[in-house]
């Protein structure tokens, strides 16, 4: 079967990307690049924490761990040893909309990695002992990244506050009680449901011969039967009517502020303008928020903004860590003033041009190595259904106007769409959590219990 897509795009210069689909639904995106004798071989499954249910949160992530176990044809540990023997390495990541597995190997070992990945797509042998060990590992990972890390804790609480019914409200790593209680049958069902060729895309970037690659992929994956994928229940998060705030005390030397504004999905026409605003606010030392919070007022260590690149509407986040003698409210006032100015006054051409240059440099920086290129292609193919969106978004970012910026700020970065997490250093009165605003509609007791874990 011929390749179906060849990209020629101003933002894809020298990137010759092609796409193919096997009869069983397996997608294949290839970017041949002989710059180094290596290959990034990534398998993107269209399953993430959004596909979980309350009570089974963390399933997609726990499963990612289990995928490195034994299969019906290979004993435990062989997957890692085989990859490591080549000089390569492998890893995986789970997020709200996807799970992907990365194998970085010498180009000469392409056939080997195809055999390994096709094997675990269909032959994984789940064992209770392995599940128990990985359950402990994930519990440890959660403690490391959330329970003992203020930033991770704040991220988790922001999502919970912003989403009342949408799955984006629970953490990808899962709630601890769900991690502890997940059963073998649930795990097995998850594998059989979502790990199938028609729910996956292979993204291969590096020193590959496309003809040989396609022949190998057909040989190793061609006989794997597609699964009957469940119809996804579309959950629409209700509109937020007023600001939501939560305040926590943690054993940390300085306060933190994390804001999330209900924004749009990555396919939305306003997403590039919001991404542009994030760069305008916090990319580089002359960016507006960095300059205001860190240099002029000296109340923060830094400021970070981003807008979630997600299939359903994500959050526009503003995060800042205060210096120890200042309070989160001071940062809030400064951020509000900066946003008010952006809403009120048109950004001048010089600043627009500056942000365009920053965005262009960031774009090419993300595409520097084979792994970065594969990750970018895999994300867009899996989240938006078409890897070409990577280049379209880049082009649209380069075309953002002052009016687009003003529209994005006035529409989305407003109090009614805002959720705020405030973290204070723990004093002698202990820790805990409290609603910072009587209008808050969160579940106080639940949050306090979570904090104690």
């Amino acid at each position: 079967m011929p390749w179906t897509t060849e990209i020629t795009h101003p933002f894809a210069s020298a990137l010759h990307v092609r796409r193919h689909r096997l009869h069983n639904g397996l997608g294949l995106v290839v970017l041949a690049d002989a710059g180094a004798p290596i290959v990034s071989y990534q398998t993107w499954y269209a399953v993430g924490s959004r596909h979980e249910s309350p009570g089974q949160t963390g399933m997609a992530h726990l499963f990612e761990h289990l995928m490195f176990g034994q299969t019906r044809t290979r004993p435990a540990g062989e997957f890692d040893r085989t990859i490591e023997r080549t000089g390569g390495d492998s890893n995986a990541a789970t997020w709200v909309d996807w799970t992907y597995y990365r194998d970085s190997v010498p180009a000469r070992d392409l056939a080997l990695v195809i055999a390994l990945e096709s094997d675990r797509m269909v032959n994984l042998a789940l064992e209770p002992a392995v599940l128990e060990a990985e359950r402990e590992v994930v519990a440890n990972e959660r403690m490391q990244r959330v329970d003992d890390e203020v930033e991770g804790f704040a991220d988790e609480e922001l999502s919970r506050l912003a989403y009342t019914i949408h799955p984006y409200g629970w953490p990808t790593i899962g709630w601890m009680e769900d991690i502890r209680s997940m059963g073998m049958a649930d795990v097995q069902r998850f594998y059989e449901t979502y790990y199938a060729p028609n729910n996956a895309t292979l993204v291969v970037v590096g020193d590959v011969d496309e003809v040989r690659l396609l022949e190998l992929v057909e040989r190793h994956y061609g006989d794997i039967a597609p699964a009957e994928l469940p119809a996804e229940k579309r959950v629409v998060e209700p509109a937020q009517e007023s600001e939501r705030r939560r305040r926590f005390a943690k054993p940390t030397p300085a306060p933190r502020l994390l804001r999330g504004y209900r924004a749009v999905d990555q396919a939305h026409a306003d997403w590039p303008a919001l991404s542009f605003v994030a760069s305008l606010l916090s990319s580089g030392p002359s960016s507006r928020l960095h300059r205001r919070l860190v240099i002029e007022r000296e109340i923060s260590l830094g400021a970070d903004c981003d807008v979630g690149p997600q299939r359903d509407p994500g959050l526009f986040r503003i995060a800042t860590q205060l210096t120890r003698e200042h309070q989160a409210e001071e940062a809030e006032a400064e951020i509000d003033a900066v946003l008010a100015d952006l809403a009120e006054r048109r950004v001048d051409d010089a600043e627009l041009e500056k942000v365009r240059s920053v965005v262009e440099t960031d774009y090419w920086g993300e595409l520097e190595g084979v792994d970065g290129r594969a990750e970018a292609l895999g994300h867009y193919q899996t989240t938006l259904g078409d890897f070409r969106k990577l280049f379209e978004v880049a082009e649209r970012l380069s075309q953002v106007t002052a009016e687009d910026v003003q529209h994005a700020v006035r529409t989305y970065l407003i109090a009614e769409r805002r959720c705020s997490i405030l973290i204070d250093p723990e004093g002698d009165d202990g820790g805990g959590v409290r609603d910072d605003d009587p209008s808050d509609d969160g579940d106080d007791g639940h949050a306090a219990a979570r904090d104690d874990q």
Partner: protein
Amino acid sequence: MSARFHFAPAVGTPLCWFSAATRVGAALDPVGREGMTRHVAELARRGAGGLDRAALDSAIDCLGASIEVEVDRDWLSVTATCLERHLDRTVELAASVLADPLLERGEHEMLLRESLHELDDVRDDDASLADRHFHRVCSPGHPYARTALGTQESLARIELAPLADYHASLWAPEHMVVGVAGPMTVARAETVADRVRAAVAGRTGARPPALDVPPFPPGRRIILVDKPKRTQCQVLLGHLAPVYGPGDFVALMPLETAFGGLFSSRLMQEIRVARGWSYGAGCRMSKARAPHWFRMWMAPTADHAADALALTLSLYDKLAAGGLDADEFQLAIHHLTGALPFASATARQRMRLALRHDLLDLPEDFPAQLPALLAALTVDDVREAAGRWLRPRDLCIVMVASADEMVPRLERAGSPPSEIVAYDSY
């Protein structure tokens, strides 16, 4: 002798990178003024070439570029990233940071305050906190025991007056290394290097002295860094490792790989895979000009920390006594030789690799020599090197945990801490 020059051409990207680096790092900070090299290098980035901080930041950002300072214990670098069409202006700005810094008093005082806040940030992150304390206590008196960021006391001693001369002495051309990568000809890259060199032409500086390494303290020491309400315990164990380069460092690379450098390594298999005690576990030898650390690490829960520590010590005893088995050795050799292309896959990586080896006084092609050096090793070579360097009885152990939870557990396990320090004491 002029500054050395390394170039790596790139295709398929409009990005360029260049670095100017010098062989003076934080290990050579004046005694009592730890953090001074980092401070003056960062201060130079906050105003140069007649532009104050705001103007310089704006000039760099307008190009979509970045100019960043990095301070290692052995070296200092200023690295720029930019689009090819902005290369000339970015070089001009970076050269001014090297040659013509303003070193303004207001920025000096603000940077000192920021550094204190960064100390808070380090203390907030348990892994960084463990690392900071491990450096402090592993080998007292060792030049690498000195902190690049500084301490509250040492930062207070840094005055503005001597900084201009100190900064000028850092960037003497005879000790500089310049690296350039990007979509350009070698002639254009040489022009970039020439402009950087010309900016500091005529300056002289003494060659950095050899680092004096004291004997490693005998015995096992457990230093508990007490931080409240921890669910986990960050653990670092280690002692001195050989100098990076041919010889014992290379001979120990298979051991480092098989014991704690891979997912299939002994530590990962025993601590994580078999018992689920920690999200990760591993070991690493630091690459430096003088003997640096061999470190093992893990992050078990408080409940499992004493058992995980005991198991790690037992595994380490066995490693020191017996080295690797033949299968482990072969897998490690295959991995190490096969992994080299990944470290030099992009132009930026190749430039950085050449520059780093130059700064460590190793041949530019040392990474290319590694496969042959590794292939010549035998499992007996590894065992003999292990006998010379692995010291299971002489270990520094740093644990970041809540003392009220951890001390009773360690005492029950027969390994009470030798010292307990507050997490914000350093």
